[in-house]
């Protein structure tokens, strides 16, 4: 029987999809829209730092980043292949997409630990 | 060389194929079908399949219901074999995965059905035939050695010296004409409802198998017995299954009156009673409709007179649970909802009791040629088939024919005679000529329609000698004109017009036998009602009609005694006991 990596990728994709669905909108809403527009005040740097001091918070952030990036990588891989008809370059596309996600994950770890 | 070549991929054909594959895997089996097997007409059967299962029911009772339902024209040895083997066939289907509806304890559920005195009709919601056919088809996929000729149309049986040697068939998609040599051939091509204008039958039910056998000299049997189903939707002829009545539906006329009580079918009760009123046999219900029509108590519509089927009192819940497909069909094809509206219905041609004459193993008088399913007449249906007997019939006799053909093929391992090639060559030239097209002549559809109306007029629910005699002439004339029919399509690829023309020839051939048998039978029995001979006449006609093709191409009818074992002819009693 041929082995395939897809089940693992799909689990990461799905997990990422759930996480993204639950946390991304509120984060973008706060930091990307409301605060820059001045509708909500920026929290103090100390407050945010304080949050990041918690190991659990940092760990959670890394998980969120990794999963969401995998989610995006998986979808971008498939959609680009469907939209552009480049399925025959799947290996290359996959390496680029998941590679990007892994790089992002490593960056997150290096940043926070 | 193929050992067992099965023409037809419906329930009967596929059951035969599996039977051969299981009994002797060394034999080469092929299924030739003009449509992909899962498109065969078995797929449309709705109501259910009868077999004795529950406690409190006996084989003898099923026999009696079948024989009395068939107005004592059934061969009783055949009925006994059928009734005895039906339960194991339906259980076999269950073992293959058929999603039969169930009781809450996990056993198979049964429902009442017209003309059956006990609850013995197994069902898979109201898509019994659909589930049965797909289960069978998917099971045959397991037998990878069964060769399938999907979308191949058989145009001729190769018969030499009283023995079959194969078929000639067209691969529809390419137009390739091929002679397929075979040691045995099983015809499982289904019925021929399309010889009538208003029918529940699919477009493919054109009686090809009957015509193939008949042309080579095999006799057809009981062709005058055409079953009208009392409840078809006007215009489309879509069937509203008998299960709708079994679940408690009422037939009412334009005054809202349950008119069946006027026709010796019992007294109305609020809940359904077996073998009574709406659960009477199909022939009697359809005849009652005609009387209502004559009394002016039907409702006129653009598609002819109708009465109503009333399901409203069952309520949405029961309709959705038990007969969801009825609701789906009414909504998508008639634009009404049976939970709130009356369903207009009228009798519609549904089933052919007659067919290729066979013995209990499906063998025809031509050596090596077998027939099973609706295309055959064994005969268990006599003058009127009971609803839900046909699905078990195609299984029981499909299997029997398969086993018998396998045995025949094992015993006859001689080489093919030269006649195979020469007959194949002749047939190829005939078809190629037809494919050259013809710019003059009448359209196939017009000829077909005239044939259909001729049959409806002369061989409908009620018949008279005069009308039938006239129809003999009309059909002879139509046959000549059909030889000159106009053909637009000269292409080899998927030329459906060429196929339609072959089907028209088959139907005309069959139509002639129906009319000839009806004219010959000067009595009224079951589905055959003559206004000029309104009584049953056991003295002269407790016999099958057997029709041969005379050398000049016209049908010649004789009689064959009925086999009676334990049930002497009696009166058919419904609704009073």
């Amino acid at each position, binding site marked *: 029987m*041929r082995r*395939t990596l897809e*089940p*693992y990728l799909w689990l990461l994709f799905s997990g990422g999809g759930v996480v993204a669905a639950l946390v991304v909108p509120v984060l973008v809403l706060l930091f990307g829209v409301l605060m820059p527009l001045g509708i909500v005040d920026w929290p103090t740097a100390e407050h945010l730092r304080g949050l990041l001091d918690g190991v659990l918070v940092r760990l959670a952030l890394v998980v969120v980043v990794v999963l969401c990036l995998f989610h995006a990588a998986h979808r971008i891989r*498939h959609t680009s292949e*469907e939209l552009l*008809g480049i*399925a025959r370059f799947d290996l290359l596309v996959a390496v680029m997409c998941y590679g990007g996600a892994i790089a992002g994950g490593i960056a997150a770890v290096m940043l926070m630990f | 060389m193929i050992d067992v070549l099965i023409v037809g991929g419906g329930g009967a054909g596929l059951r035969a194929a599996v039977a051969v594959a299981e009994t002797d895997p060394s034999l080469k089996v092929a299924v030739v079908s003009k*449509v*992909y097997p*899962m*498109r*065969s*007409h078995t*797929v*449309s059967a709705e109501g259910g399949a009868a077999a004795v299962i529950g406690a409190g029911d006996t084989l003898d009772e099923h026999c009696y219901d079948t024989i009395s339902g068939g107005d004592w024209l059934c061969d009783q040895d055949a009925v006994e074999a059928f009734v005895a083997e039906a339960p*194991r066939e339906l259980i076999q289907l269950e*073992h293959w*995965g058929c*999603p039969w509806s*169930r009781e*809450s304890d*996990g*056993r*198979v559920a049964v429902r009442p059905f017209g003309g059956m005195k006990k609850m013995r009709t197994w069902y898979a919601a109201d*898509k019994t035939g659909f589930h049965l056919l*797909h289960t069978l088809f*998917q*099971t045959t*996929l397991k037998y990878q050695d069964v060769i399938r000729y999907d979308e191949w149309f058989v145009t001729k049986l190769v018969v030499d010296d009283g023995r079959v040697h194969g078929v000639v068939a067209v691969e529809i*998609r390419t137009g390739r004409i091929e002679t397929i040599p075979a040691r045995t051939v099983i015809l499982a091509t289904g019925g021929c409802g399309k010889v009538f*204008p208003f029918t529940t039958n*699919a*477009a493919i039910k054109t009686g090809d198998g009957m015509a193939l056998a008949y042309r080579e000299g095999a006799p057809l049997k009981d062709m005058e017995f055409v079953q009208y189903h009392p409840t078809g939707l006007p*215009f*489309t002829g*879509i*069937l509203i299954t008998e299960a709708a009545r079994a679940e408690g539906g009422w037939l009412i006329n334009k005054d809202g009156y349950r008119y069946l009580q006027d026709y010796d079918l019992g007294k109305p009760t609020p809940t359904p009673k077996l073998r009574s009123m709406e659960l009477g046999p199909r022939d009697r219900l359809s005849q009652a409709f005609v009387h209502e029509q004559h009394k002016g108590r039907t409702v006129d519509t*653009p598609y002819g007179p109708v009465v109503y089927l009333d399901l409203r009192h069952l309520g949405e819940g029961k309709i959705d649970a038990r007969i969801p497909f009825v609701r789906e*069909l009414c909504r*998508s*094809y*008639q*634009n009404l909802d049976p939970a709130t509206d009356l369903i207009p219905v009228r009798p519609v041609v549904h089933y052919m009791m007659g067919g290729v004459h066979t013995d209990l193993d499906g063998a025809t008088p031509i050596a090596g040629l077998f027939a099973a399913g609706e295309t055959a007449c064994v005969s268990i249906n006599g003058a009127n088939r009971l609803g839900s007997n046909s699905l078990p019939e195609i299984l029981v006799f499909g299997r029997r024919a398969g086993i018998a053909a396998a045995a025949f093929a094992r015993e006859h391992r001689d080489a093919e005679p030269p006649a195979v090639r020469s007959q194949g060559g002749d047939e190829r030239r005939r078809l190629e000529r037809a494919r050259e097209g013809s710019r003059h002549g009448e*359209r*196939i*559809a*017009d000829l077909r*329609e005239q044939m259909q*109306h001729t049959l409806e007029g002369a061989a409908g629910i009620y018949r008279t000698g005069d009308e039938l005699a006239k129809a003999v002439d009309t059909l002879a004339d139509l046959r000549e004109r059909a030889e000159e029919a106009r*053909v*637009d*399509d*000269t*292409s080899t*690829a*998927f*030329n*459906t*017009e060429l196929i339609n023309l072959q089907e028209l020839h088959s139907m005309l051939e069959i139509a002639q036998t129906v009319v000839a048998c009806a004219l010959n039978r000067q009595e009224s029995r079951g589905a055959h009602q003559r206004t000029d001979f309104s009584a049953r006449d056991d003295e002269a006609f407790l016999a099958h009609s057997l029709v041969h093709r005379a050398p000049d191409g016209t049908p010649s009818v004789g009689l064959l005694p009925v086999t009676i074992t334990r049930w002497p002819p009696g009166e058919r009693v419904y609704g009073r006991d």
Partner: protein
Amino acid sequence: MTDTTQAVRQAAGTRTIRMEVARYRPGQDAEPVFQGYDVPLMSDWAVLDGLNHIKDQLDGSLSYRWSCRMGVCGSCGMTVNGEARLTCGTFLTEYGEGPVRIEPLKGFPVIRDLVVDIDDFLAKLSSVRPWLIREGEDLPLTAEYAQTPEQLEAYKQYSMCINCLLCYSACPVYVLDPDFLGPAAIALAQRYNLDSRDMGDRFDVLSQDDAVWGCTFVGECTRVCPKHVDPAEAIQRYKLTAALRSVLPWSRR
């Protein structure tokens, strides 16, 4: 012209609808071309009735498949105004004044006019072993395997597939990559997987890049399915099953 035809014409009055039908005659046309026909617009005519009128009265050379005319044989699927439909269950009046464009199902090779090649599907169907797999002794043919209504309900929906292939035609993944196992075949595999009587295992065919993992959950298969089979759901459910089985190797299903 026969009586019925005349009656139909009369009932329709002068109302007609234009049907633009894709024609492809191998050897004659390099690619499909449209041919227009005017047919009577009857309130209870399906698109298929219109095609039958063309074939019977106007042009006998038009080719298409049909049989039951009651939405159960699955042969009359075509593309009607861009959408995959069963033509026997699609009323002409849905298209108002017309025109209605009839094309073959998308995603399949066209054999002739409106007829497409579906052999590929049949091969795929048999590859998923769509039959009941049992191990050990079979029951004798005197007793059925018990199955409660709840157990029946667990797979019933997936057993309703009529193999009409509208779902394949609507699925962009299949149209772009014919190797994709596709919605109906997977739904039918699930029909057996979820049957309480089945002991088979179809992981080897289903958990493949061009089987369940090829599906990107476009969901069109489910939307066009005339029998509410919901193949999209069948596929996503199997993805979960297969994924869990891959990470938890000891969990067989």
